[in-house]
C-alpha cells in the first residue's frame, strides 16, 4: 500500500479551478514514466469532503493540491495543522478539517501534511486555464516533481513557506 497520499481537487469546467486536477494528472504521468507512480496514492475529486479523511489511514505523508484565489503567485507550499474546531459546508471543506476528522476517527495523529496552492486568476465556467494559471501550473509541476523525488516530512518541511495568515 502506498504510504504517501496525493490529493487534488477542483472543477475542471471552471477554468483555473482545474489547476489541482491538471497538476495531479501531469504529475502522475511523469511518475509513471519513471516507474515510481505506485509509491503514491493518487486521489482526484471535485471538492474535499469528509470521505477523504479515510484516505489518510496508513499514510506517512500527505500532499493536498488546490487552486487559490488571491493567494501567492505562482504557488505557495506550507504545512497543514488539523483544526481544533473543524468546519465544513455542503460545497467546501478545508484540508485542515479533513485532518481533524481523521484524528477523531482513528484517535491518532494525522501524518505530516502539506498544501500546494497554485494561484488562479479566472474561475468562470469555461474550459482551459488562463495564461497566468498555465504558467503557475508549469512552475508548480516542477516543484511537485522535486517533492516526489524525496518524499519525506523533513525534506518537504525544508522547502515549505510560512503558512498564509
Amino acid at each position: 500500500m502506498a504510504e504517501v497520499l496525493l490529493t487534488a481537487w477542483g472543477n475542471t469546467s471552471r477554468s483555473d479551478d482545474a489547476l489541482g486536477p491538471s497538476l495531479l494528472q501531469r504529475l502522475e504521468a511523469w511518475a509513471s514514466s519513471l516507474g515510481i507512480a505506485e509509491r503514491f496514492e493518487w486521489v482526484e475529486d471535485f471538492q474535499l469532503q469528509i470521505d477523504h479523511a479515510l484516505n489518510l489511514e496508513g499514510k506517512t505523508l500527505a500532499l493536498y493540491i488546490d487552486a487559490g484565489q488571491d493567494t501567492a503567485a505562482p504557488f505557495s507550499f506550507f504545512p497543514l495543522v488539523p483544526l481544533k474546531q473543524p468546519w465544513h459546508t455542503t460545497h467546501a471543506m478545508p484540508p485542515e478539517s479533513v485532518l481533524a476528522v481523521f484524528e477523531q476517527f482513528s484517535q491518532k495523529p494525522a501524518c505530516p501534511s502539506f498544501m500546494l496552492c497554485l494561484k488562479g486568476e479566472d474561475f468562470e465556467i469555461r474550459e482551459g486555464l488562463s495564461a497566468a494559471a498555465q504558467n503557475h501550473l508549469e512552475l508548480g509541476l516542477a516543484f511537485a516533481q522535486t517533492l516526489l523525488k524525496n518524499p519525506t516530512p523533513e525534506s518537504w518541511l525544508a522547502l515549505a513557506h510560512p503558512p498564509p495568515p
Partner: protein
Amino acid sequence: MLELENAKTTQGLRRIAIDPVSRVEGHGKVTLLLDEQNKIHQVRLHIVEFRGFEVFIKGRPYWEVPVTVQRLCGICPVSHQLAACKAMDVIIGAKQLTPTAEKLRRLMHYGQTVQSHAVHFYHLASPDLLLGFDSEVAQRNIVGVAMKYPDIAKQGILLRKYGQEVIQHVAGKRIHGTGAIPGGVNKALTAAERDEMKKNLPQLIEWAQGAIDLVQRLHEENPAFYNSFGQFESNMMGMVRGDGALDLYHGDLCVKDGKGKPIFDRLNYETYTQVLREEVKPWSYMKFPYIAELGPEKGWYKVGPLARVQTCDFIPSPLAEAARQRMLAIGNGLPVHSTLTYHWARIIELLHGLEVIQSLLDDPDLLGKDLTVKGERQEEGVGVIEAPRGVLIHHYKVNEDDQVTMCNLIVSTTHNNQAMNTAVRSVAMQYLDRRVISEGLLNHIECAIRAYDPCLSCATHALGKMPLQVELLDAEGKLLSRLRRDSLGELHTSDMHG
C-alpha cells in the same frame, strides 16, 4: 383552497424567507407571511430552479438520451439513466431483457439506492437527529457528527462508498457511467468484480441494522415529538411487483389513500397520462401533480420511502421486512404519516438494498455474457423506476430518423411538491406560529423539507458556498433586519433601524 397557501391579504404582513434551504440537493426557498403577533398567514416552498431538459432533448438521437439525462442530477444519475433506458427499451422493441442485463441493471440501481440513502441519512439528516434541531448551527453538519459520533459518521461514509463502488463496477464510473443502454447493458461483470463487491457486505448489513435501531430508539425516546412533527394524512404512491412486493426497478404503480385503502391497486405505468395531471402555480417553477379523478385539492400524494414501504404488501428481503413491521407498528393498524418517519423508512430501504445486492451477487446469471436484445421498432416509450426519492417517469416519442420528438419527465421530487408544502405549513403552525422566530425554529421547517430528501437540482448544479440568509421586511417590503449564516457557519446580524 389549500390552507396557508394564499393569505387573504398581504397588507400589514411581514415576510420571512429561508433562502436557500440548506442540506438538500439544489436550490429552493421558503417564504412565510406573518402579522404583528407573529401569527402565520401564508407558507410556501418555492422551487427556484428552471429545468430545460424536456426541450433540449428534442432532436437528439434516442441512443444519446440515457447518457444525457444523467446530467439532470449528480446524486441519482443512475435512476435517470435507467428510466430513460426502460423507455428506450420500448422504442427499440426490447420487450424482455436478458436475465443478465436485467440483473446487472438491478444491481446498479440498488447500489445507487444504498449510496443515495446513505448520503441523505448520514450526511444531511443525522446532524439534526443526533445533534438536535436547534443545536449550535456551526456544528450542525456531518463534521459535527464526526466529532461527536465518529463511528456513525464513518459507517455512513463507508456505506455510501460501497454503493458508489457497486455503480462503478456495473457502469464503469461512480457518476455518469454508461452501463445501461437501450436493450440491455454494455458491460459484463467479471468474477473478480463480483467477489470484490461481496467483501465486507455482512459488515455493511450490520451497520444498516444499527442505523435502523438508532432511528427506532429516537422515536421511542420521544414519541410525541416524532409522531406529531409534520403529521398529516395524504395519498401515497409506490411501485410494486405482481405479488405486492416492494420493487424499486420494475412493477405496477399502487396508490393508497391516507387510511391505507387502495385508490389504484395496480396501474400499468404506461397509462400514467390517463390518471395523472399536473397543476401549475405562479409562485413556483415546480408543477403540482395530482390524480385526475380526485382533483388537485384531494388528489395529491406522497412518494418515496415512507410511501413505498406502505403501498407494498411486503419487502422481499427478511431483515428489511422485519424492520418494516416494527415501523408500521407505531401506526396501530393505520398508515404512518409523520414526516420524520421518512428517515426510518429510508434506512429500512437502505438495508433492503444491501440484502438485494447480496442476493444478486450470489446469482450465476450475473456473470452471463448475453447482454442486449432488440425487436420491432416503436414510436413511443414510457419508462418508470423507483428512484431513491420516489417514482420517476420518463416518456419519449422518437421519429423514424431516430430523433426524439417529445420528452416528458416527472421527477420524484415533483410528485412530493404538495406534500412538502403541506409539511412545512404543518411545522410552521406547530413551532413558529405566534412565537419569536429564531434560527433553530426556522431549521424545523428545513427539517420537514429535508425528510423528503428533495432533489431540487435536477438540471442545475449548485456552485459556490451554501449560506443561509433570513431577511425581515416590513409590510412595504423595506428591509428591517437580516440574519446571515456564512460559509464558516458563523451568524451575522444586521439591524437596519436607525
